[in-house]
């Protein structure tokens, strides 16, 4: 990332519309996350990283590609912090600025099977690429 961390953190707050300072660190987001085990930075930690502007760790994080956008953390957050929106915003700055796509069309043929719905391809492309 070329931009300074402060600017990046601002961008994440702006794209997500989330104020991470509202977090009271109850951990409910992580408790309810179905991808928790797969994430290196857990949802409640993710919020703290944005607060502390520790952006380099976030944009390198596996968490960006493990979030399912199922909105369990968004629905269940007692402070309306919506960690899933922060994760999505960090993912956005990665795919927008780095071109670091998580999915390439070349990978598709071997991922297909006869039952696979079009919806899955469309969703994955929108989620993993610019």
């Amino acid at each position, binding site marked *: 990332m070329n931009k300074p961390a402060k600017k990046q953190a601002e961008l994440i707050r*702006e*794209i*997500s*519309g989330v104020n991470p300072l509202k977090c009271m660190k109850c951990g409910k987001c992580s408790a309810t996350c*179905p*991808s928790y085990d*797969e994430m290196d930075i857990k949802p409640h930690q993710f919020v703290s990283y944005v607060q502390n502007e520790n952006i380099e760790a976030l944009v390198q994080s596996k968490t960006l590609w*493990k979030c*399912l*956008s*199922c*909105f*369990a953390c*968004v*629905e269940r957050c007692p402070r309306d912090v919506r960690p*899933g*929106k922060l994760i*999505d*915003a960090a993912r*956005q700055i990665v795919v927008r600025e780095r071109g670091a796509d*998580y*999915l390439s069309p070349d*990978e598709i043929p071997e*991922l297909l099977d006869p*039952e*696979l*719905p*079009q*919806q*899955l*391809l*469309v*969703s*994955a492309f*929108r*989620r*993993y690429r610019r």
Partner: protein
Amino acid sequence: MKYSYYPGCTLRTKAKDLDAYAKASARALGFELEEIENWQCCGGVYPLGSDEIATKLSSVRALNEAKEKGQELVTLCSACHHVIKRVNDDMKHVEDIRTRANNYMQLETPYAGETTVLHYLEVLRDRIGFDVLKEKVVNPLTGRKIGAYYGCLLLRPGSVMAFDNPENPTIIEDFIRAIGAEPVVYPYRNECCGGYISLKEKELSKNMCDTIMESAEGFGAEMLITACPLCLYNLNKSTAKKLPVYYFTELLAEALGVKDAKEEVAK
């Protein structure tokens, strides 16, 4: 009664049954689904970024066409419903998105969220009524123990989707009762199936679906029903308990005695 109808990409391809049974059932219940002309794919996932505009426009086009026809807009696929309903909420309540989307659209009259978006299940509940549906059932599915699989997209975020209580929904259970079967309530019915993660990380979504299947089976369900082609696909990949998974419209058509009519109405 005539509604505008947005089928979406998968209902024209892998999920033709979801669509055909819905149309055959609509005819039996006395309403018509008029397909939006030249609809475009919704994108499958709602673009969360507050500065994402272009990715929301296909929904705005469908919403505006329904508005111009003076019709409510009906969806069937959970993902399309989620995306279109949330974009409509943005157009209604978020001034920046509304202004910028309308700058792209260049409509004679700007679109500002006027259309009502209804999922097919909401049409059954709020326009037809489950009591009326029950009266029209000719072939009640007596004795079948059915688990409703809601997943995430229809319910959350509850403040926007306003589909049902996001933590303790009843709409699909009420639907199951209306068609004469017995609903089985189980804890994982509103937890995520893994969604798009199943493209690259098949093991991860399989584990989630195993948990859902085991939960449903443990509470006595003999089958699951869903409104989402991706949930159906993911659930069918579970190797834990092999409960059959159906689209809710298939059981609806069966109960209404129009299951064989689906070929006729399918385009």
